[in-house]
C-alpha cells in the first residue's frame, strides 16, 4: 500500500471518529435532555398539584389560608358577604371550575379563581399571584396554571399571566424566552397544569456534558487538522525523497558519479533515512573505486597472460616450424615445401568458407607437419633420385601413419593428426593409408592434400624440374579431379591460385 493511500485511510478513520463522536453526542444529549425535562416537569407539576389540592381541600374544610380569598356564593353567584351579583364575572359549566379571567376580583393583581361546590353553596377560591409565586419557587422552570383554551391564569413568572400559550406540549417562545412547554391535566375542570422549561435551564444541567463533548470534538478536529498537515508534509517529503533516490539510482545505472543531496524535511526520521542513504552511497562509491582498481589489476594480469600465451604460441609455431624444417632437411628435395603449403592451404580454407578457428589452426599446423611422419622413413628412400621400388613405396606410404603417431602425442591436436594421416587419401578411395573415399575424408585433409600436390608439382625434385603453375593445374585437372580431389575443391583452389597470380602481377 502506498503511503498516500495509507494516510488517506487514516484520515477517513478520523472523519469516521468525528461522526461517531457527533452521533454519540446527539444520542447522549437527547437522553440527558429527556431526563432533565422529566425531572423538572414532574417535580414542579407535582408541587403545583399539591398547592391546588391543599388549597381546595382547605377551602372545603373551612380552614383559613394566608393570602387565599374564599368567598361564599349562592347558586346565583351572589356574594353572600357583599350581596354583589358576580354572575357577570363568573360562570361555569361543571364544578370544580377554573375561571379563565386572570384579573383579581377580591385581590389586587392577577389571581386564579376556582368555583367549588360545598353543600348548597358555591365557594369562590381566589389564589393570588403572590402566593403562587412564593409557594412554587422555581429557579430553572416556570410553572403555569392555564385554562383548557391555553390562557395563563397564574405563573411563577408573573409576566406570563394573561398570555395565551395554547394547550399543546411543544417548544415555544414565551415572552422572549425560548423553551419547552409541557402540559398535564388536573382534576379541576377547565384547568391544566403546565411547566415551561427555558432552554437555558437545560443548558445549565447539560453544560458539563456539552463542555466535555465539545472539548472532545474540538480535540479530535484539532488532532485531525494536525494529522492532515503532518500527512501533507509526510507525503510531500516522502515523494521528494523517493524522486531524489530515483534520480540517484538512474545516475548509478548510467555509471555516473552520484552525489546524493539530502532534502531538508521537518520529519527527523526521514532526515535520518536520507543520512543513511548518503552513507550507503559513500560506501557504495568506495566499493566501486576498489572494484575498479581490482578490475584494472585483473585486466593487467589478463594482458600479461595473453602476451605470455602469444609468446608461447609463437614459440610453439617456431618449434613446430623448426620440426618441419628438420624433416625437410632430412628430405633434401622438399626444403621450404611445408611453409608454402601452409599459406596456400589457409587461403583455400577461407575460400571454402572455413571460419572455425580450431579448423583453421588444424589446417595451419596440419599443412606444416603433414609430412612429419617422413622422419621415420629411411633417408635413402627419401632422397632416392630415381623411382621408388614397390617395397620402398610401401615404406614411404607409412609416413602418414608415423606422422599421426607423433602428432597424437600432443593433446588437443586430434584434427591436426587427422590431416597428417589422411592427406594422401583420394576421393575415389584409391589413397592411403586407410583408403577413405568421398566424405570420409575431412575437408581439412583434402585442402592440405590438393595444396600439397600442387606445391610439390611446382617445386623442383631430384628426379624432375619444377612445373609451371598452369602445367601443375592442368595435371591436377586432367588427372586428379574426380579421382583424387572433388571438382568443387579444385574449383575453389583454382580461384585461390588465380587470385594469387593476379596479386603477384600487380
Amino acid at each position, binding site marked *: 500500500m502506498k503511503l498516500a493511500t495509507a494516510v488517506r485511510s487514516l484520515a477517513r478513520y478520523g472523519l469516521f471518529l468525528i461522526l461517531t463522536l457527533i452521533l454519540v453526542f446527539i444520542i447522549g444529549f437527547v437522553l440527558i435532555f429527556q431526563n432533565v425535562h422529566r425531572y423538572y416537569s414532574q417535580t414542579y407539576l407535582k408541587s403545583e398539584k399539591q398547592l391546588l389540592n391543599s388549597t381546595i381541600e382547605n377551602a372545603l374544610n373551612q380552614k383559613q389560608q394566608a393570602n387565599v380569598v374564599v368567598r361564599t356564593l349562592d347558586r346565583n353567584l351572589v356574594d353572600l358577604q357583599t350581596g354583589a351579583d*358576580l354572575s357577570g364575572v363568573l360562570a361555569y359549566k361543571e364544578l370544580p371550575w377554573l375561571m379563565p379571567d386572570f384579573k383579581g376580583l377580591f385581590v389586587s*393583581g392577577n389571581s386564579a379563581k376556582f368555583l367549588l361546590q360545598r353543600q348548597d353553596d358555591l365557594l369562590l377560591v381566589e389564589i393570588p399571584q403572590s402566593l403562587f409565586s412564593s409557594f412554587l419557587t422555581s429557579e430553572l422552570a416556570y410553572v403555569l396554571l392555564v385554562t383548557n383554551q391555553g390562557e395563563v391564569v397564574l405563573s411563577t413568572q408573573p409576566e406570563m399571566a394573561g398570555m395565551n400559550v395554547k394547550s399543546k406540549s411543544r417548544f415555544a417562545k414565551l415572552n422572549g424566552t425560548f423553551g419547552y412547554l409541557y402540559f398535564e391535566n388536573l382534576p379541576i375542570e377547565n384547568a391544566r397544569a403546565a411547566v415551561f422549561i427555558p432552554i437555558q435551564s437545560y443548558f445549565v444541567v447539560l453544560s458539563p456534558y456539552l463542555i466535555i463533548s465539545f472539548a472532545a470534538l474540538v480535540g479530535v478536529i484539532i488532532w485531525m487538522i494536525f494529522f492532515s498537515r503532518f500527512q501533507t508534509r509526510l507525503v510531500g517529503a516522502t515523494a521528494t525523497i523517493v524522486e531524489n533516490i530515483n534520480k540517484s539510482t538512474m545516475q548509478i545505472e548510467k555509471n555516473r558519479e552520484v552525489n546524493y543531496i539530502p532534502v531538508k524535511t521537518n520529519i527527523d526520521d526521514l532526515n535520518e533515512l536520507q543520512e543513511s542513504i548518503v552513507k550507503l552511497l559513500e560506501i557504495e562509491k568506495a566499493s566501486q573505486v576498489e572494484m575498479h582498481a581490482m578490475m584494472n589489476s585483473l585486466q593487467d594480469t589478463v594482458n600479461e597472460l595473453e602476451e605470455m600465451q602469444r609468446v608461447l604460441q609463437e614459440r610453439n609455431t617456431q618449434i613446430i616450424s623448426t620440426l618441419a624444417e628438420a624433416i625437410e632437411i632430412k628430405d633434401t628435395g622438399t626444403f621450404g615445401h611445408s611453409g608454402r603449403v601452409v599459406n596456400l592451404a589457409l587461403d583455400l580454407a577461407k575460400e571454402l568458407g572455413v571460419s572455425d578457428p580450431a579448423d583453421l589452426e588444424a589446417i595451419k599446423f596440419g599443412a606444416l607437419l603433414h609430412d612429419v611422419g617422413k622422419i621415420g622413413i629411411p633417408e635413402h628412400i627419401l632422397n632416392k633420385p630415381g623411382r621408388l621400388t614397390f617395397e620402398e613405396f610401401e615404406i614411404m606410404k607409412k609416413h602418414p601413419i608415423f606422422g599421426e603417431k607423433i602428432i597424437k602425442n600432443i593433446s588437443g591436436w586430434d584434427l591436426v593428426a587427422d590431416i597428417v594421416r589422411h592427406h594422401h587419401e583420394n576421393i575415389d578411395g584409391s589413397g592411403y593409408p586407410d583408403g577413405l573415399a568421398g566424405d570420409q575424408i575431412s575437408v581439412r585433409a583434402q585442402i592440405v592434400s590438393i595444396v600439397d600436390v600442387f606445391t610439390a608439382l611446382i617445386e623442383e625434385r631430384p628426379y624432375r624440374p619444377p612445373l609451371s603453375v598452369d602445367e601443375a593445374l592442368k595435371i591436377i585437372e586432367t588427372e586428379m579431379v574426380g579421382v583424387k580431389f572433388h571438382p568443387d575443391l579444385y574449383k575453389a583452389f583454382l580461384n585461390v591460385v588465380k587470385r594469387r597470380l593476379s596479386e603477384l602481377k600487380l
Partner: protein
Amino acid sequence: MKQMVLVAALVAVVIVIVFTLHSKQPNPTILIFEDGEADFRSGVDRYTKDNKLKINPVTIRVDQPVSEVEKNLRKYHSCYAIGPRISSEALTLLPYLEKFQIFTIAPLVTSPKVVGKSKYLMSLSPSDELQARDLVERLQKDLRKSTVVICDRNNIAYSESLFQMMVQFSPLSFDCLYIDSVDELVNFDFSKYDSVVLIVDGRVAGLVAQLALRKGFNGIIYGSDYAYTDALITTGSSAVEGMILYGLFDLSQMTKFGFTSLEHAGSYDALMVILTLVSSKIKTTEASNYLQGKTFKGATGTFTVSSDLSVFRTTNFVTVRNAQFIADEVKK
C-alpha cells in the same frame, strides 16, 4: 491545499451568515409593563395585526419587588415600553426608567406626581387637573350636594392627587374613603349621599356600585377614568347602569376601531407612537424632544403631545347604558 480551500469556504460561509444576521433589521423589542390587572398586550397584538408588523414584545411585571423589576429592566437598556397601568406603579418605576433610559408610554397615567416629571414617561391622557375640574363641574351641573369619593389605596399616587384637585376646584366639600377591598364598605352608609365618585379600578367600582345600591343608595354614581374598564360592566352588572364616567379618549373613535377598553385602545396608540419613533430612528433619550408638539390620530382619537409629555385631546363623559359606554357630551 484542498484542506485550505475547505477552511476558507467555511470562514466565508460564517462571514456571510454573520453579515446577514447583522444586516437584518431585528424586530424591535417593546416592553410591556403589566401588573396582573392591566391588559396592554391585547392592544399591542391588535396594532401589529392591523399593520402586519413584527415586534418582539416582552412583558415585565411591575407588581413585583423593586429589586426584581430593576433586574429585569437592566436587560432592556434604551428600549421603548408601554405601561404601567396606574400612576403609583409609574412613580415607582420612574427612577429606573431614567437609569436605564427606557422611554415608556403609560396611556392612562395622569397623575401630576408622575406626568411631566421625567422625559422618559409619556401619557396619552390629558392631565388630572382637567379631569378634576371636569368632574367637579359635572357634579355641580347635576346639582349634587353630598358626595362621597371612594379612592383606591393601591393607587394612592393617582387617587389622592385627583381627589385633592377635586377638593381644590369644588366649592363643596367631599367625604373621602380609601379602600383596599370592597369588603371595607360592607357597613358603610351610602344612603346619605346623592352622589358617589369612584376613583377605583373598574372591577372594584362595579362591586362598590352593587354594594351601594344594595345599601339604599339612589343617587348618581360617577367614575374617574380609572373605573372606565370593561370589568366595570361585567362586575357591576345592572348596578352600573346610568353611571357617568370620565372618558379620557374619544369614544366614537374607539368604537370605530372596535375598542371598548381604554387599556386596549391606549396601548394600541402607544405602540403607534413608539413605532413612529423607531422607524424614525429616534433614540429614547431624544424621544421627548421629538414628540413635543407632534399630533397623532389613532384609536383613542386625535391628540397632540404637550411639553410635559401629556396630551391635548378631546375628552368626554360617557354613560353606561344597556351594558355599553355611550358618549354623553364632548368637551375640549
